[in-house]
Protein backbone atom coordinates (compact mmCIF):
# COMPACT_ATOMS: atom_id res chain seq x y z
CA UNK A 1 0.00 0.00 0.00
CA UNK A 2 2.67 2.36 1.06
CA UNK A 3 4.78 1.69 -2.00
CA UNK A 4 1.79 2.40 -4.25
CA UNK A 5 1.19 5.80 -2.73
CA UNK A 6 4.89 6.54 -2.94
CA UNK A 7 4.88 5.61 -6.58
CA UNK A 8 1.91 7.86 -7.29
CA UNK A 9 3.58 10.69 -5.45
CA UNK A 10 6.62 10.35 -7.66
CA UNK A 11 4.47 10.29 -10.77
CA UNK A 12 2.50 13.28 -9.55
CA UNK A 13 5.64 15.30 -9.41
CA UNK A 14 6.34 14.26 -12.97
CA UNK A 15 2.89 15.21 -14.18
CA UNK A 16 3.02 18.78 -15.49
CA UNK A 17 0.31 21.33 -14.79
CA UNK A 18 -0.02 22.07 -18.47
CA UNK A 19 1.00 19.84 -21.31
CA UNK A 20 0.76 21.17 -24.83
CA UNK A 21 1.43 18.59 -27.53
CA UNK A 22 1.91 19.58 -31.16
CA UNK A 23 -0.83 22.15 -30.99
CA UNK A 24 -1.79 24.08 -34.06
CA UNK A 25 -4.63 26.55 -34.13
CA UNK A 26 -5.99 27.67 -37.44
CA UNK A 27 -9.20 29.58 -37.60
CA UNK A 28 -11.33 31.20 -40.19
CA UNK A 29 -12.81 34.51 -39.42
CA UNK A 30 -14.77 36.98 -41.44
CA UNK A 31 -13.01 40.15 -42.47
CA UNK A 32 -16.11 42.25 -41.98
CA UNK A 33 -16.64 43.74 -38.58
CA UNK A 34 -20.35 43.27 -38.77
CA UNK A 35 -21.26 40.37 -41.02
CA UNK A 36 -24.84 40.58 -42.21
CA UNK A 37 -27.16 38.44 -44.24
CA UNK A 38 -27.63 41.28 -46.70
CA UNK A 39 -23.96 41.69 -47.56
CA UNK A 40 -23.47 37.92 -47.63
CA UNK A 41 -26.25 37.50 -50.15
CA UNK A 42 -24.90 40.36 -52.24
CA UNK A 43 -21.42 38.85 -52.21
CA UNK A 44 -22.79 35.42 -53.11
CA UNK A 45 -24.27 37.04 -56.20
CA UNK A 46 -20.82 38.25 -57.14
CA UNK A 47 -19.23 34.96 -56.17
CA UNK A 48 -16.77 36.30 -53.60
CA UNK A 49 -16.11 35.24 -50.04
CA UNK A 50 -14.76 37.38 -47.28
CA UNK A 51 -13.25 34.81 -44.99
CA UNK A 52 -9.62 34.79 -44.05
CA UNK A 53 -7.72 31.91 -42.57
CA UNK A 54 -5.37 32.67 -39.72
CA UNK A 55 -2.69 30.25 -38.63
CA UNK A 56 -2.29 31.51 -35.10
CA UNK A 57 -0.24 28.62 -33.68
CA UNK A 58 1.93 26.16 -35.58
CA UNK A 59 2.94 22.90 -33.94
CA UNK A 60 3.68 24.22 -30.47
CA UNK A 61 4.71 21.72 -27.79
CA UNK A 62 5.79 22.33 -24.22
CA UNK A 63 5.16 21.34 -20.65
CA UNK A 64 4.73 23.59 -17.66
CA UNK A 65 5.50 21.89 -14.33
CA UNK A 66 3.39 22.73 -11.29
CA UNK A 67 4.50 25.89 -9.55
CA UNK A 68 6.17 27.43 -12.57
CA UNK A 69 5.72 31.10 -13.32
CA UNK A 70 6.06 31.34 -17.05
CA UNK A 71 6.38 34.63 -18.91
CA UNK A 72 5.36 34.77 -22.54
CA UNK A 73 6.77 37.51 -24.73
CA UNK A 74 6.47 38.20 -28.40
CA UNK A 75 5.42 40.80 -30.91
CA UNK A 76 1.77 41.57 -31.61
CA UNK A 77 0.18 38.73 -33.51
CA UNK A 78 2.75 36.18 -32.40
CA UNK A 79 0.02 33.89 -31.05
CA UNK A 80 0.40 34.67 -27.36
CA UNK A 81 -3.27 35.34 -26.73
CA UNK A 82 -4.34 32.39 -28.85
CA UNK A 83 -2.04 30.17 -26.81
CA UNK A 84 -3.63 31.44 -23.60
CA UNK A 85 -7.14 30.89 -24.95
CA UNK A 86 -6.26 27.39 -26.05
CA UNK A 87 -4.94 26.50 -22.62
CA UNK A 88 -8.07 28.00 -21.06
CA UNK A 89 -10.23 25.83 -23.32
CA UNK A 90 -11.86 28.80 -25.02
CA UNK A 91 -10.36 28.13 -28.43
CA UNK A 92 -9.98 24.43 -29.23
CA UNK A 93 -6.84 23.29 -31.02
CA UNK A 94 -7.12 22.44 -34.70
CA UNK A 95 -4.48 19.79 -34.22
CA UNK A 96 -2.72 18.39 -31.20
CA UNK A 97 -3.74 18.13 -27.60
CA UNK A 98 -3.78 20.29 -24.51
CA UNK A 99 -3.96 18.77 -21.06
CA UNK A 100 -4.48 20.95 -18.04
CA UNK A 101 -4.43 19.76 -14.44
CA UNK A 102 -6.10 22.06 -11.98
CA UNK A 103 -8.63 24.82 -11.82
CA UNK A 104 -7.92 27.59 -14.25
CA UNK A 105 -8.65 31.24 -13.70
CA UNK A 106 -8.30 33.53 -16.66
CA UNK A 107 -7.65 37.21 -17.01
CA UNK A 108 -7.48 37.55 -20.74
CA UNK A 109 -7.34 40.95 -22.40
CA UNK A 110 -10.93 41.94 -21.70
CA UNK A 111 -11.49 40.52 -18.26
CA UNK A 112 -14.84 40.55 -16.49
CA UNK A 113 -17.63 42.88 -17.35
CA UNK A 114 -19.12 41.24 -20.39
CA UNK A 115 -22.28 43.25 -20.14
CA UNK A 116 -21.72 46.91 -19.49
CA UNK A 117 -25.36 47.49 -18.63
CA UNK A 118 -25.17 45.16 -15.67
CA UNK A 119 -23.70 46.21 -12.37
CA UNK A 120 -20.24 45.23 -11.23
CA UNK A 121 -21.76 42.85 -8.71
CA UNK A 122 -23.87 41.09 -11.33
CA UNK A 123 -20.93 40.79 -13.67
CA UNK A 124 -18.73 39.29 -10.99
CA UNK A 125 -21.37 36.74 -9.98
CA UNK A 126 -22.23 35.79 -13.55
CA UNK A 127 -18.59 35.53 -14.57
CA UNK A 128 -17.86 33.30 -11.58
CA UNK A 129 -20.84 31.03 -12.22
CA UNK A 130 -19.88 30.73 -15.88
CA UNK A 131 -16.39 29.75 -14.82
CA UNK A 132 -17.93 26.91 -12.83
CA UNK A 133 -17.59 28.22 -9.30
CA UNK A 134 -20.42 27.48 -6.97
CA UNK A 135 -22.44 30.25 -5.49
CA UNK A 136 -21.38 29.75 -1.89
CA UNK A 137 -17.74 29.99 -2.82
CA UNK A 138 -18.44 33.14 -4.81
CA UNK A 139 -20.34 34.84 -2.00
CA UNK A 140 -17.49 33.99 0.31
CA UNK A 141 -14.92 35.59 -1.99
CA UNK A 142 -17.05 38.50 -3.07
CA UNK A 143 -16.17 40.95 -0.30
CA UNK A 144 -12.51 40.17 -0.65
CA UNK A 145 -12.67 40.87 -4.39
CA UNK A 146 -14.41 44.19 -3.91
CA UNK A 147 -12.11 45.26 -1.12
CA UNK A 148 -9.01 44.51 -3.12
CA UNK A 149 -10.35 46.38 -6.15
CA UNK A 150 -11.34 49.28 -3.84
CA UNK A 151 -14.68 49.59 -5.56
CA UNK A 152 -17.04 49.24 -2.58
CA UNK A 153 -19.26 52.15 -3.56
CA UNK A 154 -19.32 51.28 -7.27
CA UNK A 155 -20.41 47.66 -7.25
CA UNK A 156 -24.09 48.40 -7.76
CA UNK A 157 -23.51 50.83 -10.62
CA UNK A 158 -23.73 49.58 -14.18
CA UNK A 159 -20.24 48.93 -15.48
CA UNK A 160 -20.64 51.43 -18.30
CA UNK A 161 -20.16 54.05 -15.59
CA UNK A 162 -16.74 52.63 -14.71
CA UNK A 163 -13.51 54.19 -15.84
CA UNK A 164 -11.15 51.89 -17.69
CA UNK A 165 -8.91 51.77 -14.63
CA UNK A 166 -11.76 50.63 -12.43
CA UNK A 167 -12.66 48.06 -15.03
CA UNK A 168 -9.16 46.66 -15.01
CA UNK A 169 -8.94 46.69 -11.22
CA UNK A 170 -12.10 44.64 -10.86
CA UNK A 171 -11.02 42.18 -13.53
CA UNK A 172 -7.64 41.70 -11.90
CA UNK A 173 -9.14 41.31 -8.47
CA UNK A 174 -11.63 38.66 -9.63
CA UNK A 175 -8.96 36.62 -11.39
CA UNK A 176 -6.53 36.53 -8.48
CA UNK A 177 -9.14 35.82 -5.81
CA UNK A 178 -10.59 32.69 -7.38
CA UNK A 179 -7.97 30.46 -5.72
CA UNK A 180 -6.88 29.08 -9.06
CA UNK A 181 -4.35 26.29 -9.41
CA UNK A 182 -3.43 27.81 -12.72
CA UNK A 183 -3.68 31.49 -13.47
CA UNK A 184 -3.58 32.85 -17.00
CA UNK A 185 -2.96 36.57 -17.29
CA UNK A 186 -2.89 38.38 -20.58
CA UNK A 187 -1.72 41.99 -20.69
CA UNK A 188 -3.37 42.92 -17.46
CA UNK A 189 -0.50 43.57 -15.09
CA UNK A 190 -0.56 47.29 -15.53
CA UNK A 191 -4.05 48.38 -14.66
CA UNK A 192 -5.20 51.32 -12.65
CA UNK A 193 -3.07 54.08 -11.21
CA UNK A 194 0.49 53.77 -9.96
CA UNK A 195 -0.65 52.83 -6.48
CA UNK A 196 -2.90 50.03 -7.66
CA UNK A 197 -0.17 48.78 -9.97
CA UNK A 198 2.14 48.44 -7.01
CA UNK A 199 -0.57 46.64 -5.13
CA UNK A 200 -1.35 44.26 -7.98
CA UNK A 201 2.33 43.63 -8.50
CA UNK A 202 2.70 42.74 -4.83
CA UNK A 203 -0.31 40.43 -5.11
CA UNK A 204 1.23 38.80 -8.15
CA UNK A 205 4.46 38.22 -6.30
CA UNK A 206 2.52 36.70 -3.43
CA UNK A 207 0.75 34.34 -5.83
CA UNK A 208 4.01 33.47 -7.54
CA UNK A 209 5.46 32.48 -4.19
CA UNK A 210 2.49 30.22 -3.36
CA UNK A 211 3.64 27.56 -5.79
CA UNK A 212 0.80 28.19 -8.18
CA UNK A 213 1.26 27.79 -11.87
CA UNK A 214 1.05 31.16 -13.54
CA UNK A 215 1.32 32.15 -17.18
CA UNK A 216 1.86 35.82 -17.86
CA UNK A 217 1.67 37.46 -21.25
CA UNK A 218 3.09 40.92 -21.08
CA UNK A 219 5.00 43.55 -22.94
CA UNK A 220 6.24 44.80 -19.60
CA UNK A 221 9.54 42.97 -19.79
CA UNK A 222 10.69 44.25 -16.43
CA UNK A 223 7.79 42.56 -14.67
CA UNK A 224 8.43 39.32 -16.50
CA UNK A 225 12.07 39.42 -15.51
CA UNK A 226 11.12 39.97 -11.91
CA UNK A 227 8.18 37.59 -11.51
CA UNK A 228 8.88 34.66 -13.76
CA UNK A 229 11.22 31.75 -13.40
CA UNK A 230 10.84 30.61 -17.01
CA UNK A 231 10.10 32.53 -20.15
CA UNK A 232 9.15 31.74 -23.69
CA UNK A 233 9.40 33.87 -26.79
CA UNK A 234 6.65 33.35 -29.33
CA UNK A 235 7.23 34.36 -32.89
CA UNK A 236 4.69 34.00 -35.72
CA UNK A 237 2.85 31.14 -34.08
CA UNK A 238 5.89 29.12 -33.12
CA UNK A 239 8.06 28.93 -30.03
CA UNK A 240 11.32 30.64 -30.78
CA UNK A 241 13.06 30.30 -27.47
CA UNK A 242 12.43 28.78 -24.04
CA UNK A 243 14.88 29.68 -21.36
CA UNK A 244 15.45 31.64 -18.18
CA UNK A 245 13.69 35.04 -18.32
CA UNK A 246 16.92 37.01 -18.60
CA UNK A 247 18.14 35.04 -21.59
CA UNK A 248 14.77 35.19 -23.36
CA UNK A 249 14.31 38.89 -22.78
CA UNK A 250 17.83 39.68 -23.93
CA UNK A 251 17.34 37.71 -27.13
CA UNK A 252 13.92 39.22 -27.67
CA UNK A 253 14.97 42.82 -27.18
CA UNK A 254 17.99 42.27 -29.37
CA UNK A 255 15.66 40.92 -32.02
CA UNK A 256 13.36 43.89 -31.67
CA UNK A 257 16.30 46.23 -31.90
CA UNK A 258 15.20 48.34 -28.99
CA UNK A 259 17.11 49.19 -25.93
CA UNK A 260 15.51 47.62 -22.93
CA UNK A 261 16.03 50.73 -20.85
CA UNK A 262 13.36 52.43 -22.90
CA UNK A 263 10.88 49.66 -22.26
CA UNK A 264 11.68 49.35 -18.61
CA UNK A 265 10.87 52.95 -18.02
CA UNK A 266 7.36 52.36 -19.31
CA UNK A 267 6.80 49.47 -16.97
CA UNK A 268 5.23 49.75 -13.55
Amino acid at each position, binding site marked *: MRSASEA*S*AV*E*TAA*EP*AIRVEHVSVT*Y*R*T*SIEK*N*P*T*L*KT*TLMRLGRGERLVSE*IKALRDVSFEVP*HGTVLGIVGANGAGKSTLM*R*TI*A*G*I*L*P*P*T*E*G*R*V*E*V*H*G*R*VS*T*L*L*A*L*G*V*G*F*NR*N*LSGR*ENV*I*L*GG*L*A*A*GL*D*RDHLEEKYDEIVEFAELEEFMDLPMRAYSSGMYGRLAFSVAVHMDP*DILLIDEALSVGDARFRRKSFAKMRELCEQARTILIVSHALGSIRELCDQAVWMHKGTMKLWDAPDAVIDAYTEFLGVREAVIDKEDV
Partner: protein
Amino acid sequence: MSTTSTEQSSGAAAAQGASRGRRRAVDDIFGERHVYEPHRVGLPPLGRYARMVWRRRAFALELSRTNMRAQHLNTVFGQLWLLLNPVLLGMVYFLLVDLLRQHSRGFAFFAHLLAGLFLYQIVQTSATDGARSVVKGGRLILNTAFPRTLLPIASVITAFKRFLPTLLVYAPIHLIAGLPVDWQLVYLIPVVALMVIFASGLAMLLSAAQVYFRDLSSFLPYVLRIWLYVSPVLYYYDEVPSKYKPILDVNPLTPILASWSDVLDKGHAPRPGFLLLGVAWAAVAFAAGFLFFVSREREFAVRI
Protein backbone atom coordinates in the same frame (compact mmCIF):
# COMPACT_ATOMS: atom_id res chain seq x y z
CA MET B 1 -15.43 22.62 -25.99
CA SER B 2 -14.27 19.24 -25.00
CA THR B 3 -13.52 19.34 -21.34
CA THR B 4 -12.74 16.16 -19.53
CA SER B 5 -12.80 16.30 -15.81
CA THR B 6 -12.08 13.94 -12.99
CA GLU B 7 -14.72 11.26 -13.28
CA GLN B 8 -14.50 10.78 -17.03
CA SER B 9 -11.35 9.49 -18.60
CA SER B 10 -10.31 10.93 -21.94
CA GLY B 11 -12.06 9.57 -25.01
CA ALA B 12 -9.36 7.49 -26.65
CA ALA B 13 -7.87 6.14 -23.45
CA ALA B 14 -10.21 3.24 -22.74
CA ALA B 15 -7.41 0.71 -22.94
CA GLN B 16 -4.87 2.23 -20.62
CA GLY B 17 -5.96 1.19 -17.16
CA ALA B 18 -2.56 1.89 -15.70
CA SER B 19 -2.39 5.45 -16.91
CA ARG B 20 -5.91 6.05 -15.69
CA GLY B 21 -4.87 4.96 -12.23
CA ARG B 22 -2.01 7.39 -12.33
CA ARG B 23 -4.28 10.19 -13.44
CA ARG B 24 -6.69 9.57 -10.64
CA ALA B 25 -3.88 10.01 -8.15
CA VAL B 26 -3.09 13.36 -9.72
CA ASP B 27 -6.70 14.42 -9.70
CA ASP B 28 -7.03 13.61 -6.02
CA ILE B 29 -4.55 16.34 -5.42
CA PHE B 30 -5.38 18.87 -8.08
CA GLY B 31 -9.11 18.30 -8.29
CA GLU B 32 -9.61 18.98 -11.94
CA ARG B 33 -8.29 17.82 -15.23
CA HIS B 34 -9.16 19.24 -18.62
CA VAL B 35 -8.23 17.88 -21.99
CA TYR B 36 -8.75 19.92 -25.11
CA GLU B 37 -8.57 18.13 -28.40
CA PRO B 38 -9.95 18.67 -31.87
CA HIS B 39 -13.29 16.94 -32.40
CA ARG B 40 -13.52 14.42 -35.15
CA VAL B 41 -16.88 15.35 -36.62
CA GLY B 42 -17.23 18.85 -35.27
CA LEU B 43 -19.26 17.73 -32.28
CA PRO B 44 -18.04 17.19 -28.73
CA PRO B 45 -19.17 14.02 -26.92
CA LEU B 46 -22.80 14.88 -26.30
CA GLY B 47 -23.31 13.07 -23.01
CA ARG B 48 -20.40 14.86 -21.43
CA TYR B 49 -21.56 18.15 -22.91
CA ALA B 50 -25.02 17.69 -21.41
CA ARG B 51 -23.47 17.01 -17.99
CA MET B 52 -21.42 20.20 -18.27
CA VAL B 53 -24.55 22.19 -19.10
CA TRP B 54 -26.32 20.70 -16.11
CA ARG B 55 -23.42 21.49 -13.80
CA ARG B 56 -23.52 25.15 -14.82
CA ARG B 57 -27.29 25.50 -14.69
CA ALA B 58 -26.97 28.09 -11.93
CA PHE B 59 -25.35 30.37 -14.47
CA ALA B 60 -28.29 30.21 -16.90
CA LEU B 61 -30.77 30.86 -14.09
CA GLU B 62 -28.76 33.80 -12.79
CA LEU B 63 -28.31 35.25 -16.28
CA SER B 64 -32.04 35.10 -16.88
CA ARG B 65 -32.74 36.70 -13.51
CA THR B 66 -30.19 39.45 -14.10
CA ASN B 67 -31.49 40.23 -17.58
CA MET B 68 -35.03 40.48 -16.29
CA ARG B 69 -33.82 42.81 -13.56
CA ALA B 70 -32.03 44.93 -16.16
CA GLN B 71 -35.31 45.28 -18.02
CA HIS B 72 -36.99 46.27 -14.74
CA LEU B 73 -39.17 43.20 -14.96
CA ASN B 74 -38.73 42.57 -11.27
CA THR B 75 -40.62 45.74 -10.35
CA VAL B 76 -44.39 45.96 -9.96
CA PHE B 77 -44.87 48.20 -12.97
CA GLY B 78 -42.47 46.18 -15.07
CA GLN B 79 -44.49 43.06 -14.33
CA LEU B 80 -47.70 44.93 -14.95
CA TRP B 81 -46.49 46.10 -18.33
CA LEU B 82 -45.59 42.54 -19.23
CA LEU B 83 -49.19 41.52 -18.58
CA LEU B 84 -50.79 44.63 -19.98
CA ASN B 85 -48.92 44.45 -23.28
CA PRO B 86 -50.41 41.17 -24.56
CA VAL B 87 -53.83 42.00 -23.13
CA LEU B 88 -53.88 45.28 -25.09
CA LEU B 89 -52.56 43.49 -28.15
CA GLY B 90 -55.31 40.89 -27.69
CA MET B 91 -57.91 43.66 -27.56
CA VAL B 92 -56.58 45.20 -30.76
CA TYR B 93 -56.66 41.88 -32.56
CA PHE B 94 -60.12 41.10 -31.18
CA LEU B 95 -61.47 44.40 -32.48
CA LEU B 96 -59.90 43.79 -35.85
CA VAL B 97 -61.17 40.24 -36.23
CA ASP B 98 -64.60 41.13 -34.90
CA LEU B 99 -64.89 43.99 -37.40
CA LEU B 100 -63.78 41.85 -40.30
CA ARG B 101 -66.18 39.09 -39.30
CA GLN B 102 -69.19 41.44 -39.02
CA HIS B 103 -69.38 41.26 -35.25
CA SER B 104 -69.78 37.54 -34.95
CA ARG B 105 -67.21 37.00 -32.23
CA GLY B 106 -68.04 36.49 -28.60
CA PHE B 107 -66.12 36.68 -25.37
CA ALA B 108 -65.08 33.03 -25.72
CA PHE B 109 -63.14 33.99 -28.80
CA PHE B 110 -61.38 36.74 -26.87
CA ALA B 111 -60.31 34.11 -24.36
CA HIS B 112 -59.00 31.92 -27.19
CA LEU B 113 -57.13 34.85 -28.73
CA LEU B 114 -55.52 35.85 -25.46
CA ALA B 115 -54.51 32.30 -24.52
CA GLY B 116 -52.97 31.81 -27.95
CA LEU B 117 -51.04 35.09 -27.75
CA PHE B 118 -49.72 34.20 -24.31
CA LEU B 119 -48.44 30.83 -25.48
CA TYR B 120 -47.03 32.30 -28.68
CA GLN B 121 -45.06 34.77 -26.60
CA ILE B 122 -42.86 31.91 -25.37
CA VAL B 123 -41.60 31.46 -28.91
CA GLN B 124 -41.49 35.17 -29.55
CA THR B 125 -39.45 36.04 -26.47
CA SER B 126 -37.13 33.04 -26.87
CA ALA B 127 -36.48 33.97 -30.49
CA THR B 128 -35.88 37.71 -30.11
CA ASP B 129 -34.05 37.50 -26.81
CA GLY B 130 -32.23 34.31 -27.73
CA ALA B 131 -30.99 35.57 -31.09
CA ARG B 132 -28.96 38.27 -29.38
CA SER B 133 -27.81 36.17 -26.45
CA VAL B 134 -24.53 34.88 -27.87
CA VAL B 135 -23.40 38.13 -29.44
CA LYS B 136 -24.29 39.96 -26.24
CA GLY B 137 -22.21 37.55 -24.20
CA GLY B 138 -19.17 38.37 -26.30
CA ARG B 139 -16.71 39.25 -23.59
CA LEU B 140 -17.69 36.32 -21.45
CA ILE B 141 -17.14 34.03 -24.42
CA LEU B 142 -13.71 35.50 -25.00
CA ASN B 143 -12.65 35.11 -21.39
CA THR B 144 -14.25 31.94 -20.05
CA ALA B 145 -14.66 28.35 -21.16
CA PHE B 146 -18.22 27.17 -20.57
CA PRO B 147 -20.91 25.48 -22.68
CA ARG B 148 -22.29 28.32 -24.77
CA THR B 149 -25.75 26.76 -25.05
CA LEU B 150 -26.41 28.22 -21.61
CA LEU B 151 -26.77 31.66 -23.20
CA PRO B 152 -29.81 30.92 -25.42
CA ILE B 153 -31.20 28.62 -22.73
CA ALA B 154 -31.21 31.58 -20.34
CA SER B 155 -33.44 33.40 -22.85
CA VAL B 156 -35.88 30.50 -22.86
CA ILE B 157 -35.91 30.54 -19.06
CA THR B 158 -36.78 34.23 -19.25
CA ALA B 159 -39.56 33.52 -21.74
CA PHE B 160 -41.00 30.82 -19.48
CA LYS B 161 -40.84 33.04 -16.42
CA ARG B 162 -42.67 35.74 -18.34
CA PHE B 163 -45.28 33.22 -19.44
CA LEU B 164 -46.24 31.99 -15.96
CA PRO B 165 -47.88 35.19 -14.65
CA THR B 166 -49.94 35.52 -17.84
CA LEU B 167 -51.77 32.37 -16.77
CA LEU B 168 -53.09 34.30 -13.77
CA VAL B 169 -54.47 36.98 -16.08
CA TYR B 170 -56.02 34.38 -18.32
CA ALA B 171 -57.70 32.33 -15.59
CA PRO B 172 -60.53 34.79 -14.74
CA ILE B 173 -61.17 35.47 -18.43
CA HIS B 174 -61.48 31.74 -18.99
CA LEU B 175 -64.04 31.50 -16.19
CA ILE B 176 -66.04 34.55 -17.28
CA ALA B 177 -66.18 33.22 -20.83
CA GLY B 178 -67.73 30.06 -19.39
CA LEU B 179 -65.14 27.80 -20.96
CA PRO B 180 -64.90 24.25 -19.60
CA VAL B 181 -62.99 23.56 -16.41
CA ASP B 182 -62.22 19.93 -15.72
CA TRP B 183 -59.38 17.49 -15.28
CA GLN B 184 -58.58 17.61 -19.01
CA LEU B 185 -56.75 20.85 -18.27
CA VAL B 186 -53.73 18.78 -17.18
CA TYR B 187 -53.05 18.34 -20.89
CA LEU B 188 -51.91 21.96 -20.86
CA ILE B 189 -48.70 20.87 -19.13
CA PRO B 190 -47.36 18.69 -21.98
CA VAL B 191 -48.48 21.32 -24.50
CA VAL B 192 -46.48 24.05 -22.72
CA ALA B 193 -43.55 21.65 -22.42
CA LEU B 194 -43.60 21.07 -26.18
CA MET B 195 -43.65 24.82 -26.76
CA VAL B 196 -40.66 25.33 -24.46
CA ILE B 197 -38.68 22.55 -26.16
CA PHE B 198 -39.49 23.95 -29.57
CA ALA B 199 -38.54 27.46 -28.42
CA SER B 200 -35.21 26.18 -27.04
CA GLY B 201 -34.30 24.68 -30.39
CA LEU B 202 -35.26 27.89 -32.15
CA ALA B 203 -33.31 30.05 -29.70
CA MET B 204 -30.15 27.97 -30.15
CA LEU B 205 -30.48 28.02 -33.93
CA LEU B 206 -31.03 31.77 -34.08
CA SER B 207 -28.35 32.71 -31.56
CA ALA B 208 -25.73 30.77 -33.51
CA ALA B 209 -26.93 32.19 -36.82
CA GLN B 210 -26.83 35.70 -35.38
CA VAL B 211 -23.06 35.36 -34.96
CA TYR B 212 -22.71 35.02 -38.72
CA PHE B 213 -25.50 37.34 -39.77
CA ARG B 214 -25.80 40.28 -37.43
CA ASP B 215 -28.87 41.67 -39.17
CA LEU B 216 -30.90 38.56 -38.40
CA SER B 217 -32.44 40.07 -35.30
CA SER B 218 -33.75 43.01 -37.32
CA PHE B 219 -35.68 40.66 -39.62
CA LEU B 220 -37.05 38.67 -36.75
CA PRO B 221 -39.99 40.88 -35.72
CA TYR B 222 -41.44 40.64 -39.22
CA VAL B 223 -40.94 36.91 -39.43
CA LEU B 224 -42.51 36.45 -36.01
CA ARG B 225 -45.52 38.56 -36.91
CA ILE B 226 -46.17 36.63 -40.11
CA TRP B 227 -45.67 33.40 -38.19
CA LEU B 228 -48.35 34.49 -35.74
CA TYR B 229 -50.77 35.22 -38.59
CA VAL B 230 -50.38 31.75 -40.06
CA SER B 231 -50.86 30.10 -36.66
CA PRO B 232 -54.30 29.27 -35.25
CA VAL B 233 -54.36 32.17 -32.80
CA LEU B 234 -56.38 34.89 -34.54
CA TYR B 235 -58.86 32.20 -35.63
CA TYR B 236 -59.78 28.63 -34.72
CA TYR B 237 -57.97 25.87 -36.55
CA ASP B 238 -61.23 24.26 -37.68
CA GLU B 239 -62.58 27.35 -39.44
CA VAL B 240 -59.61 27.74 -41.75
CA PRO B 241 -60.75 27.47 -45.40
CA SER B 242 -59.30 24.40 -47.13
CA LYS B 243 -57.44 26.73 -49.49
CA TYR B 244 -55.21 27.89 -46.64
CA LYS B 245 -55.00 24.59 -44.77
CA PRO B 246 -51.70 23.56 -46.42
CA ILE B 247 -49.96 26.66 -45.02
CA LEU B 248 -51.13 25.83 -41.51
CA ASP B 249 -50.20 22.21 -41.93
CA VAL B 250 -46.55 23.00 -42.61
CA ASN B 251 -46.38 25.50 -39.74
CA PRO B 252 -44.56 23.74 -36.87
CA LEU B 253 -46.52 25.76 -34.32
CA THR B 254 -49.94 24.72 -35.63
CA PRO B 255 -50.16 21.37 -33.81
CA ILE B 256 -49.00 22.89 -30.53
CA LEU B 257 -51.30 25.92 -30.67
CA ALA B 258 -54.24 23.86 -31.93
CA SER B 259 -53.74 21.40 -29.05
CA TRP B 260 -53.69 24.36 -26.67
CA SER B 261 -57.00 25.54 -28.08
CA ASP B 262 -58.47 22.01 -28.03
CA VAL B 263 -57.90 21.78 -24.30
CA LEU B 264 -58.87 25.34 -23.34
CA ASP B 265 -61.77 26.03 -25.67
CA LYS B 266 -63.30 22.61 -26.08
CA GLY B 267 -62.23 21.01 -22.85
CA HIS B 268 -61.10 17.78 -24.42
CA ALA B 269 -57.73 16.13 -24.83
CA PRO B 270 -55.68 17.32 -27.82
CA ARG B 271 -56.27 15.35 -31.00
CA PRO B 272 -53.68 12.54 -31.00
CA GLY B 273 -52.54 13.58 -34.46
CA PHE B 274 -51.72 17.09 -33.25
CA LEU B 275 -49.99 15.80 -30.17
CA LEU B 276 -47.81 13.43 -32.17
CA LEU B 277 -47.00 16.07 -34.76
CA GLY B 278 -46.22 18.55 -32.00
CA VAL B 279 -43.83 16.10 -30.35
CA ALA B 280 -42.17 15.47 -33.71
CA TRP B 281 -41.72 19.18 -34.48
CA ALA B 282 -40.42 19.97 -31.00
CA ALA B 283 -37.92 17.12 -31.22
CA VAL B 284 -36.76 18.13 -34.69
CA ALA B 285 -36.41 21.80 -33.72
CA PHE B 286 -34.51 20.98 -30.56
CA ALA B 287 -32.17 18.49 -32.23
CA ALA B 288 -31.49 20.77 -35.20
CA GLY B 289 -30.93 23.84 -33.03
CA PHE B 290 -28.73 22.03 -30.54
CA LEU B 291 -26.58 20.23 -33.10
CA PHE B 292 -26.11 23.35 -35.20
CA PHE B 293 -25.20 25.41 -32.16
CA VAL B 294 -22.80 22.89 -30.65
CA SER B 295 -21.07 22.23 -33.95
CA ARG B 296 -20.47 25.97 -34.32
CA GLU B 297 -19.86 27.17 -30.79
CA ARG B 298 -16.10 26.54 -30.81
CA GLU B 299 -15.84 29.16 -33.50
CA PHE B 300 -17.70 31.86 -31.61
CA ALA B 301 -14.58 33.10 -29.83
CA VAL B 302 -12.98 34.14 -33.12
CA ARG B 303 -16.16 35.40 -34.74
CA ILE B 304 -17.33 37.78 -32.07
